[in-house]
Every structure is written in C-alpha cells, then in structure tokens.
C-alpha cells in the first residue's frame, strides 16, 4: 500500500523544520507529529519521511527503532509502557511487568485480542524519583505496586481513564 504524507501534515512538518538550523534536526519532532496523527510510524511512512527530510531511509529507521516512544505498529487503545531502566528496575518494575503479562496474557510488544491493551517495556521515562513508573498513553502513573496496578487496570477496563492522545 502506497503511503502518502498529506498536504496538511506536510505543512505542519514544514513549520517544525523551520525551528531548527538544519532540516534533518526536525526528524524526531516530525516523527512524534506523525505518530500523534496515525498512532504509529508505518514502514512506508519512514520512506516518505526520509524523502521529505532529505535523509537516508536507514537513518529514519535507525531513529524510529532506537526510541521506545515510537510505535512501529498500531497499538491497542491503552498502551501500557513500563519503564525498565535502573531506578524502576530496582524499585520493582520486573514484578509489574510479570504481573501485567500474566493478567493480560500477552508478552511485551503484544496487543490483547480485544485491542484494548498493548504492553511495552520502555527505556527511562525521566521520573526516577517516583519509580516504578508506567506510562499509559500520555499519562504517567507513579510509585506503583501490585495493588495500585490492579486498581488501575480495573479503572481502565471500566472506562475511567481517558484514552490519551486521541
């Protein structure tokens, strides 16, 4: 399927590019903008973006795959992103991840069959002081433990959390 950047998107991307001395410097902001619009960064989109920013395709792909904040396929309605870096790891992130895997019946990088949840282990969310941390769509949930996590999942299932970013 041929992917086309819309004129509207291109106009917004041009504005982002204008903020930087070099066009390629806008890569990450433009990727974030694209993800905001489409929910994920598709393979074809990387190709289009590379042309748009006059970058080699491999450079775009390298950046997209480096950062856990970019989804390479559509995520579920709620994207559970558990930080796995040192502070969160020591404060219990592996336990949270194991709990989520068991409760949702999916592994990291997978989405539940009902399309409600996607589980990811991500790199530092920059909230070490409140470890362990999980980001759900755009919202942070801090100082988590097993009980808090269970309650949060219940809330989400009953629609008591807005689907951020959409």
């Amino acid at each position: 399927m041929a992917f086309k950047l819309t004129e509207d998107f291109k106009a917004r991307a041009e504005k982002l590019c204008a903020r930087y001395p070099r066009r390629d410097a806008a890569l990450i902001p433009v990727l974030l903008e694209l993800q905001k619009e489409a929910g994920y960064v598709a393979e074809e989109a990387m190709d289009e973006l590379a042309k748009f920013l006059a970058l080699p395709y491999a450079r775009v792909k390298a950046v997209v795959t480096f950062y856990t904040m970019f989804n390479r396929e559509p995520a579920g309605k709620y994207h559970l992103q558990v930080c796995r870096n040192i502070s969160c790891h020591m404060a219990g992130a592996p336990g949270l991840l194991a709990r989520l895997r068991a409760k949702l019946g999916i592994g990291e990088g997978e989405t539940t069959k009902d399309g409600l949840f996607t589980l990811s282990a991500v790199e530092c969310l920059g909230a070490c002081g409140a470890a362990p941390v999980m980001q759900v769509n755009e919202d942070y949930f801090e100082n988590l433990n097993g009980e808090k996590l269970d309650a949060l999942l219940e809330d989400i299932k009953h629609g008591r959390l807005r689907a951020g970013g959409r």
Partner: protein
Amino acid sequence: MPKLTIDGKSIEVAKGTTVLEAAAKLGVYIPRYCYHPSLSISGNCRMCLVEVEKAPKLLTACSTEAAEGMVVRTDSEKVKAARRDVLEYLLINHPLDCPICDQAGECGLQDYYMEYSLKKSRFAAADKVTRQKRRALGPHLVLDNERCILCTRCVRFCSEVTKTSELEVMERADHSFIDLKEGKALDNDYSMNIADLCPVGAWTSRDFRFKQRVWFLKKTPTVCLGCATGCLAEAQHNENVIYRVMPRPNAETNTWLCDRGRLAYKAVTAGDRLAKGFIKNGLIDLEPALREAATRIDEAKGAVAVLGSPWLSIEDNAALAALAIEAVKTENFCFDFPAEQGIKDGILINKDAAPNTAGVKLVKAARGGISLEELSRRLLAGQIKVVITEARAAGFIKEALKAAAPRLITFATNRGEIPQGAYATLPYASYFETPGTFVNYQGLKRRTEPAVTPPEGVKPLWGLVNKLAAYSGDSLHLNSSEDALKGVKL
C-alpha cells in the same frame, strides 16, 4: 605545534593530531576497532583508552587531540585493566565461531584477546543474547550480526565514502544490530571494502568465504588493471591459486578498491581462460598456432599492421613495436590511444577503462608510429591485409576491421575477449602471472609482480612476439621483460 610525551618518549606534532596518531608516529600501537584512518572518528568501541596525566578518567586516544605538555601512558596497569574490561564487554554476546569464521587469523577480537585480555569468560553460552546469523546482503557480502561489535565502520563507510548511506545501527543496546532497508541489497561499486574494514567476522566476502584460511595466504604486490586509476593492490594466493585481491592503501591513489577491480583476478582461472591458440574457431596447440600466424604475416609482408594496446604493459607494447619495426619491417604501426582520463565517480573509477593509456605514450615517444585514424584510413584503402593486436584494442578500429576484413591476429587471455572475425588468437600470460609496468592517469609508474604461474605452455606476450619473429626468420632477442623494452625508457 604541541609537544607531548607518550610512554616516556616525547614528540612534537602538528596541531589537530590525535593522541592515537601521535603514538603511531612514535611506533606505539594503540588497539582500536572503530577508528579507521580514512573514516570519521566515532569513539564508540573504547578500545583505545589511554591514561592522560591530570585527566580524571581514561581518554579515547582516537578522539583526544594532542595538547602541549600532555603526558600519556598507554601501558599502565589502569589502561591494561580497561582493555581487559572493554574486551570482556565486546565478547559478552560474541559467539564462539572462530573455527568456522572466515575472519579467524585476521580478527581484531582474536588478536586483542590474545594480547590484552586472556580473561576467562564469566558468561555462560546460555546467557548470550543471540542475533541474526549469516545472511547474504547484496551480491558480494554476507552479514553475521551475531559477530558484530557495532563499531560502525561499515555505516560510516557507506555514508562518508560511497555516500549511499544504506546502513545504520537499528534498535538499541544489546539488541541493536546493523541493517539496511528490508528487501534492499547492499550493492554499491565499493561494497567489498566493507569486508576488509570490518575488524571482526561480521562482514565477509561472498567470493572469499570458506575458500582459504588467511594464514595460508601469500601476498604479492600488484596493480589493479581495471581502469586508468591504477590502484595499488595485493594479490593473495596459495599453491598457485589467487584467492582475493586487496587494496594496498597509499596516499597518492587509493585507500580502497572497487568491487570490479577486486574481482578482475577471476579471469585468471575462469572457464574461458586460454591455454592454447585459436585458428578461426578451432583450438590448436600454441606452436602450430604461432607457425600459422607467422606464415600469414610472411605472406602479407608489406601489408601488415601492428596495433599496440592500452591494456598491455609497456614491455609488451614495446615488444609489439619491435616486431613491427625490426621483424615485419612495416610502417603500419600505431601506439596512439587518445582517451579522456579522470575520476568518474568521485572515488576511484576512471573515465578511461584501459589501465595503460599513459604508458603506451612512452612507447610512441620512443618508437613513433601512425595515428589510429591513419591506421583506419589505410585499412579502408585496402593497404593492409593482416592486423596484429591485443584482443580488446581491436575495438579501437572495429569499424575499419569490419569494412576492410583483413586477417586479424590477436593476443588474448580469455576466450570472451576475442573479437568477432579474428583469424588467429594467441594466448598470453596475464599480469598476475608475469611482471609488467603500467602508467596510471596521474603519470605514476606501477609494476605488477607475478603472483602465480601461467597455465602450462602460456607465455608472456613479449615471448610470443619473439617466437612469431623467429618463425619468420628474424631474431628479436627478447628473452626477458627487460629485453622487451628495446629502446623504450621507463
């Protein structure tokens, strides 16, 4: 001009010189993976860490500029410990492939492990993060990501030298790997340099894979004859078989070698390699072929033309000139090949596809001769009944040959080179088998050395010329490549 001390020896270097380069000048070797003199500095492998007085931490020698009064130690206990630790990190996920790895014997990991580490692994095989094993990426290369230490030399080569930017490091941390666009091939004109650049066995050459253990290879200096650039190269061979050709980096012409030039050696053992003569379409032993050719030359005396070749060495061209002037005694000889020269792609490949256009000029200067146009004119005027030339050079007078249809006697190494309609073809020894002097587009004289012996019975071209003359009753006394020069000054 900062003056610094490295391991107790002092040296003054130009501003901007790095510690690693300054150390090299002193003969102090600092181990490295990501550093390459012809690529940008990356500083990612950490192998070149050295101790600098007053610096709180060890510094990477490759990216630290030499400064006035700097006191550097490359052999302190702290540096040795750092090297051991860096190697331990690099080897954590490296497979134990050495017995089946082509890089074994010229591997940075093996060499440095033996020299600086010898540490027992603290990781069980089961703990290793495995990555994708070998897969062909493009026509010339195989990538084994599991062996990769992510030094990014290949990535930088593609972005800085070929400017094709196919490669990047994908993903992150211990699951990162080198990759290119899915479904794409790594196919630029210089891709095989990546196998040389790779300090470990991640990139290997499809042509060379599993053909020979590197420690058996003997090295003979040669010149790439793929075009007028005349890159310095090295034929690596064992038991009379060439296995690969590598660049001999030099400041004047080349650091790299193009893929086509690298694979030119394949013609030496190709299926169509000539070991016998050809008369019309029939294979025939060399002696009868020579006799037949000599008879035709004698028959046409006075109407014989000799055309040199920019694909032949100065020696062989000089022998052809001697044949024309002293044996056949004709004025119809031509050593004039005008060609536009210069680098075509901004890297190495020349506009002039022949390796010795400049060298033939020396023969022309010493022995004279007519121009290509004049030769064509005489052909078309019916003044010439026999043309003697090298197979590819016949292309210069293709139209006239077609129209005038003289008997064409050519010299060729491979059957594929023989021009259509050739009457007789004589096989000669390639420049991997016989010495030859060439002059590249910069006017630099370069000599090939024989790496292997020619197929049985095959002689250097000057030797064939000597025999041709002898069959016609003339003695040229060409008994060596030096004799062949005959008045042509190198």
